[in-house]
Each structure stands twice: as C-alpha cells, then as structure tokens.
C-alpha cells in the first residue's frame, strides 16, 4: 500500500479491519451494523456533534475536562462527579499511555495492579482492554456526550472499540498524534492509520451517525506558534474530509497573549473553512476548541487557578466552541476528581460571565489574525506543492523538508529546527524559523519582534530566551525575563 490522499476503498478497508479487530481479543466484539444501531439508539444528549452545533449557534463556549482512570466503575464515578459537581458540559475518557503504544499486555497488567493496589496505576482508561460492552456502561452512566482523548499513533482498534462502545467523539490525527506523541513512528504509517479512523468515522456518518473528529491542536503544548498548529489542523481536516468525516473540531493551545489567542481561534476557523471550501468540503461542520495553557504549570494551586482563569477568559473572549480545562494539580500529577471539578467550576464561572463579550473584531486582533492566515497558507500550500497534488504525501515530505516543524517534538521524523520565543508582549514568535517557507516580510516581522524584546532585556536574541520562556509560567510570568 502506498500513501495517497484518497478515500480508502471498501474492500481494502474491510481487509485491514479484519487485521485490526484481531489485534486484541476484545476486537471480536465489534459488529458495525449492531454498533450503528446502538449509536442510533443513544439519546440526543449523548451526541457530541449535536451539542457542538448547538453551542456554535448559541455562541456559548462549552467546558470539558480531561480524565481517565484504570477501572470502569471508578471511571464512571469520576465522570459522574465531573458532570454533576464539576458542571462539565462535555465529558472525556482519557486513555492510558500503554494503550496509546498498543501495549495492551502492559495495560492488562496495569488493570490488575490497580485492582490489587486499590488506586489507579495507569494514567488513563485502557478502553481496548475493557472492550465494547464496558465502554457502553460508561457512556450510558452519564447524560452528556463523552469523547475519547488519547495520543495514540495507531488508534485503529481504539477507534473501533470507542465508536462501537458509544463514544461520540474521537481526538487525534495522523500528524498530531504522532509528532508530539511518538519517537519512531513513521508519518506515512500514522497518516495511513488515521485515514482508517477517519474512514471509519465516515462509514458511521453514511449511516446517519455523526461522530466528531478532533485533530489534537496543541501538539507539544509548549510555545507552538499558531500557524504551525493551524497548518497541521488544516491538513488533518482535509485528510479527514476526504474519508467522509463531516464534523470536525479544530484545536489550538493557548499561548497566553490575549490578542494572539483570540486571533488564533478566529483565524483557525477562517483558514480551515477556506481550504475545506476550496477542496469541495463546504458541508463539513467546523467547531473550535481552545486548550487552556498546555505547557508547564506553577505548582502552587492558587497560582494554577490564576493560569486556569486566564485560559477560561481567553477562551470565552475568543468565542471558541469549547474549552479544555486544566486543574490546580496540573504541575504535580493526574488530578483527583475534586481538583478536576475545581478547574471546571472556575472555568465555568468565567466562561458564563464572559459569554456576552467578544474580542475578535478589534484592529489588533484582525491584524494578527491576517498574519496567522498568511503564515498558515505558506505552510499548507508548500505541503500541497511538495505532494505534487497529494496532501497525504505532501505532509510527509513537508516534515522531511522541515517546512512543517513542531517545536520540542520527540519524533525523529520532525526536523526540530524551529525555535519559538515570546516577543515583548508575550506573543509566540519564531526565534529560529528553521526551514519554514516564509517570505522575507514575515521573517523580518518575527525577527523584529524578538529584537524589540532583546533591547528591552538588554541581552542578545538566543536560546536562553527559549529556556526562560519554558519556565516562565511555572515561575509566575509569561515572558521569561532575565533576573
């Protein structure tokens, strides 16, 4: 099989499917027709795509946590708590790291150890090991939509079990769940594997079951300039649309400068719809998701609340369709349900208070937004060009060429040349643009931003700025000024 951006033919899909479902015994319980019927029988309140569409219409920002534990009943208790005490509008099921590596054997050990120790020894929910029926218990136990969130390069079996298990949304993508989440997984492989997930989603869509697909916006969560995550989002959106996906939620991880963050959400929708339209996918529904600051957090819980509050406010002012919430435990460990509930309620309060305020049409925002669109077009168009018309191939070549390059990513297949740093107002700019194909005016702009900062700080533009910026929020600042 060679990678190509075309819809996977049914026979080929079925052939792969057989292999996929055989990867772990629970795969045998997946029966597509039965699963479609099951999904159809779920109440409207469990459908993520519907809830997102309603929020878009009403102009509200929905609130969603991250959460997952090793055992089913514990997961149910956790999700119910987050729904009732946390006032979550949408629920997650976060998958553990062994499952993400398809190490179902290790996950099984984790389940047993968790039972033995009486505490979750896994950092998430091993949905594959638990299987379809147990997942359905989870979905039925709550009355809001539940989405699977993970970080799995090869998520084909997980998707099969999740959809058959009643989950109505699935995070990830061939680039966004590879480059930040893997070391050696080739992009050709993961893009192909996610074409499978998208095709599966499309098959449900064709049966009238709208499932929401959400590329992972924040990537490495650490000083990722908007145009890079936007370019990945646009490419994954187009790849998904080809496979028949019709409900997409595109994401962005907060950088911390309000103008840039509001501009990022505004431009994300604009540029995604532009490309979807251009390729004939005007019928795809696009929602946006704003992730509260995804990098290092302060350890003090009150300070963490400060960071959470700013994320909530920025999300609301940007008009994102939903916001993913951090917790006061972020710097230290997987949060307790109480800590998770606190992050949710703090966010809910702010999002509700700000629901009638918007920032997206000020001149500064429009200018920043226009620039992000221009940058994103450079990156996406170059990938298209490199693929000689095939975007899947183009994406692989773009990473090879470093014209797509994610800062701080662990993957070997990422050039790792790009270095970001904050400008004097905290917006994330390019300190080193690596091989990104920007015209001179854009390069000059970024350089000038950093030089302005350097002058203020009386030091040279350099890697120490990057280090200082990585530590900054944890130490109570946004821009890592020298001390």
């Amino acid at each position, binding site marked *: 099989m060679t990678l190509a951006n075309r819809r996977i033919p049914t026979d080929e899909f079925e052939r792969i499917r057989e292999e996929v479902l055989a990867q772990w015994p629970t795969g045998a319980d997946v029966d597509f027709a039965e699963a479609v019927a099951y999904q159809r029988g779920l109440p409207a309140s469990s459908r993520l795509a519907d809830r997102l569409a309603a929020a878009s219409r009403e102009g509200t920002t929905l609130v969603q946590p991250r959460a997952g534990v090793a055992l089913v009943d514990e997961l149910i208790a956790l999700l119910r708590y987050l729904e009732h005490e946390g006032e979550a509008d949408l629920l997650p099921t976060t998958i553990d*790291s*062994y499952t*993400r*590596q398809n*190490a179902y054997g*290790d996950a099984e*050990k*984790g389940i047993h*150890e968790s039972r033995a120790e009486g*505490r*979750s*020894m*896994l*950092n998430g929910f091993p949905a594959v090991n638990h299987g379809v029926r147990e997942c359905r218990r989870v979905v039925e136990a709550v009355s809001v939509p539940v989405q699977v969130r993970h*970080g799995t390069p090869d998520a084909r079996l997980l998707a099969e079990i999740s959809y058959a298990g009643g989950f109505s949304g699935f995070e990830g993508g061939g680039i966004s769940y590879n480059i*930040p*989440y*893997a*070391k*050696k997984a080739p992009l050709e492989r993961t893009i192909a594997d996610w074409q499978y997930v998208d095709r599966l989603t499309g098959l449900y869509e064709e049966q009238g079951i709208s499932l929401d697909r959400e590329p992972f916006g924040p990537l*490495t969560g*650490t000083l990722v300039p908007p145009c890079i995550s936007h370019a990945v989002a646009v490419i994954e959106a187009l790849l998904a649309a080809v496979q028949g996906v019709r409900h997409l939620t595109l994401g962005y991880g907060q950088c911390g400068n309000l103008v840039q963050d509001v501009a990022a959400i505004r431009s994300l929708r604009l540029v995604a719809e532009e490309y979807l339209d251009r390729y004939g996918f005007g019928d795809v529904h696009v929602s946006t998701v704003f992730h509260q600051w995804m*990098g*290092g957090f302060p*350890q003090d819980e009150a300070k963490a609340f400060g960071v959470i509050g700013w994320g909530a406010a920025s999300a609301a002012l940007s008009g994102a369709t939903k916001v993913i919430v951090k917790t006061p*435990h972020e*710097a*230290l*460990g*997987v*949060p*307790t349900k109480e*800590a998770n509930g606190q992050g949710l309620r703090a966010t809910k309060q702010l999002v509700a208070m700000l629901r009638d305020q918007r920032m997206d049409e000020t001149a500064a925002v429009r200018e920043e937004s226009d620039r992000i669109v221009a940058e994103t077009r450079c990156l996406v168009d170059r990938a298209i060009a490199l693929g000689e018309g095939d975007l899947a191939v183009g994406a692989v070549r773009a990473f090879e060429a470093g014209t797509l390059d994610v800062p*701080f*990513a*662990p993957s070997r297949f990422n050039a790792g040349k790009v270095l970001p740093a904050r400008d004097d107002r905290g917006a994330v700019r390019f300190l080193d643009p690596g091989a990104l194909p920007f015209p001179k005016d854009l390069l000059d702009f970024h350089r000038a931003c950093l030089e302005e900062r350097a002058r203020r700080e009386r030091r040279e533009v350099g*890697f120490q700025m990057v*280090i200082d910026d*990585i530590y900054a929020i*944890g130490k109570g600042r946004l821009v890592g000024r020298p001390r």
Partner: protein
Amino acid sequence: MAEAGQAREAPRVVLGVIGADVHAVGNRILAYSLRNAGIEVENLGVMVSQEEFIAAAVETAADAIWVSSLYGHGEIDCRGLRGRCTEAGIGRVLLYVGGNLVVGKTPFADVERRFRAMGFDRVYPPGTSPEAAVADLRRDLEARG
C-alpha cells in the same frame, strides 16, 4: 571508568525519559544544562527502555544514569533497573530519577522512599532546577573519589 579512579576530564551522564513517556521538553533542557555545566551527556531522548539505558551506560562508561519519568508510570517502568545494572556489571553507577514519578499528586517524601527502595541514589520532585542536581552529582562523585 570512574570506579577505577582514573583521572577524568568531565563526568559522564546517560540521560533519557523512561518507558512509553514522550515528554521531551524537560529532557531537552536537562541535556542543555548538563552540557553547559561541562558534563558529557549521552542523551537517549524519550521512550527509552531499561535495556537502552544500561547499554549506553556500559558503552560510555557513564558515572551516572539520569532517568526522567513524567507521565505517571514511573513506578512500573523503573522497577528492577538497579538489579539489571548490577547484572550488566555497572552496579555502582549513580542512579538519579526525577519528574512526576507516580500517578497523582502525592507527598514527595512517599515518592522518595519508594524510589530509594528501588535502588535510586537520588530522587527529584517536579520543578527541580538542573543546576541543583548537577551540584549533587559533583558532590556524589567527589565523595566516591
């Protein structure tokens, strides 16, 4: 090797993030800080198995292995590392570990106790500054002579 008491220009450290853990940012900074402090670093990056740590330590005659674990599975991933070092003939190599070592916010004293019991020489909480750990390393190496 350090154990043999030879004159050495710079301490040597094998660095990596253990298990299925992909948190790359701290690793990048640790490598940079160690090098800045004049220490020779063999950085294995993320998703490093116990075997890879040991092979690299043997090959480079390392004074210390610095293990990071952020994602919460540190306890499972680190079990038996000291024993395997001994089997590989580098039983006296310094083992340091740091990061978010267990699942959930846990009193650090508990975490430290557990990892010391597993044979780690030093255990670091999240937010440790690389400089402090480098100072510890020099002290530990000096104490060994």
